[in-house]
């Protein structure tokens, strides 16, 4: 599971039998009482509470494999919608895709034009709502009973000219993973890869040691002066390795040093990094193109994998050029300068319920890589039997032009100046596209695609 906290929004994506919606009320209260967002009072069964008034809410998920094992309101889409409808006004629920096959659900609220001035929580309010005492929310109570549903879309202060520019989310949900590829996400396999990695590094270090010794011997015949060899000695303390080689205990002394015993017993992050590198995930947004990107990965025991990536947006000029878009909004550039994008990956490799998800808000076209490139690269990591792609994009300013660009990109890819054919979402090698469904929301475009292995 993952959570991304921005100044103005929060994204929470949870796996398994987690009870995500049960945390929603607390989230709204934290936003009001701790962060200071505008709020309204809601009457629960026995007390007054405050809850921030969200600007808008999105909730989505794929159909569950085992809905009867879910908890709280998550046993059915109907219950989830009721839970959200009880909390928010003006929500709309959708099912996208085949009813008798894999499909995807979405609940979305629209920002309204309400002008009701919201109040700001005060200390007195905080003491009334019992936030600090922690007694106002009962985890076992699945539904906060409010006297009045929370109206979304009431925003005080300066209102942005449009929705967040460049707001684009790509999600790939993959099931029936190839068993060989899925093996990578078992602890046992990851440990073996880590061992192989250490052996390879050690061998490389030994080769460097031997080369250095050979060079040293050669040089000593020529002169007694000092010598210099560039290469792996900056990563490995060759003298230390040489001293250990006699007793068979080899430990590369590098910044990438992994203590395998510690990794197995206490450090899922270390093995998560190994898996992230070995499976190809680290190459989706590679260091060469995104030197300041950071991946935080974790390998679960006995299996399962999660990773979050934080990807700084490139400089404005680079973004504009790379998108090859006709849109040349200066606001887009300004926004890109300050923004940080994310991606997140979750894998459940067990054969009876194998699943992997990839989600990112790195805009398509960045660094010259189109959405179809990303989809192909991710799908190649898992080789799923079936997968869906949802592409969600704010229309923002200049909606008609962007809308046209978005849909054209989805269908055809973007033609490059060189005329070299770009990958198309329509054609993912080895897969047959089953569905393509477009939803034209008030301020968002959504394209849902579903593919099956050929």
């Amino acid at each position, binding site marked *: 599971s*993952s959570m991304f906290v921005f100044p*103005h929004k929060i994204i929470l994506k949870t796996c398994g039998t987690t009870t995500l919606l049960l945390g929603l009320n607390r989230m709204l209260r934290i936003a009001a009482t701790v*962060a200071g967002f505008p709020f309204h009072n809601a009457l629960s069964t026995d007390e007054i509470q405050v809850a921030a008034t969200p600007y*808008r809410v999105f909730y989505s998920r794929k159909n569950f494999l085992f809905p009867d094992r879910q908890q709280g309101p998550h046993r059915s889409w109907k219950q989830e919608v009721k839970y959200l409808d009880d909390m928010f006004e003006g929500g709309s629920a959708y099912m996208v895709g085949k009813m008798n096959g894999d499909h995807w659900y979405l609940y979305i609220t629209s920002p309204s034009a309400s002008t009701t001035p919201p109040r700001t929580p005060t200390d007195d309010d905080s003491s009334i709502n019992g936030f600090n005492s*922690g007694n106002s929310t009962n985890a076992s109570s699945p539904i906060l009973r409010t006297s009045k549903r929370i109206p979304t879309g009431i925003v005080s202060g300066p209102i942005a000219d449009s929705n967040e520019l460049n707001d684009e989310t790509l999600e790939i949900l993959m099931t029936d993973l190839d068993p060989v590829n899925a093996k990578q996400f078992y602890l046992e396999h990851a440990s073996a890869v880590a061992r192989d990695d250490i052996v390879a590094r050690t061998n490389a270090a030994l080769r460097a040691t031997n080369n250095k010794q050979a060079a040293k011997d050669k040089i000593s015949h020529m002169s007694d002066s000092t010598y210099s060899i560039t290469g792996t000695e900056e990563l490995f303390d060759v003298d230390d390795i040489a001293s250990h080689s006699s007793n068979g205990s080899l430990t590369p002394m590098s910044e990438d040093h992994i203590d395998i015993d510690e990794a197995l017993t206490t450090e899922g992050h270390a093995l998560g990094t190994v898996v992230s590198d070995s499976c190809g995930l680290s190459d989706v947004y590679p260091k060469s193109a995104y030197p300041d990107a950071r991946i935080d990965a974790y390998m679960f025991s006995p299996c399962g994998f999660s990773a979050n990536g934080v990807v700084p947006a490139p400089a404005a000029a680079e973004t504009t050029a790379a998108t090859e878009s006709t849109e040349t909004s200066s606001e887009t550039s300004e926004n890109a300068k300050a923004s940080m994008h*994310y991606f997140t990956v979750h894998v459940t490799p067990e054969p009876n319920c194998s*699943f992997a998800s990839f989600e990112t808000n790195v805009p398509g076209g960045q660094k010259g890589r189109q959405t179809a490139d990303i989809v192909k690269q991710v799908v190649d990591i898992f080789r799923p039997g079936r997968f869906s792609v949802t592409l969600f994009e704010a229309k923002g300013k200049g909606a008609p032009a962007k809308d046209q660009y978005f849909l054209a990109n989805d269908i055809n890819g973007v033609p490059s100046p060189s005329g070299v054919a770009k990958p198309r979402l329509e054609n993912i090698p080895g897969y047959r596209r089953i569905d393509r469904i477009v939803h034209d929301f008030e301020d968002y475009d959504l394209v849902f695609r579903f593919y099956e292995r050929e």
Partner: protein
Amino acid sequence: TLSPSLATPHLTINHEVAADLDSSNAFEGPEKLLEVWFAPSATSLAPSVKENGLKSVPSDVWVGMLDLVNCKILSVVHSETVDAYLLSE
């Protein structure tokens, strides 16, 4: 914790949770995804909102909310504009 700077994302690991996590009983892959916006953008926060908005909320405050969800924090990548929490389950 690596040396933090405003421009460079840095990682904090919650060893207390991450060290002995056993996911033997976890199952069912598909996730739920919730996205709640409290303002149209990071630059349009109401005057009453603290600087950095939700990012000003300390991690330990989110723990209470995540308890209701049945998730625990394994690690956090902090950056200038987003904090990325890796969670259990």
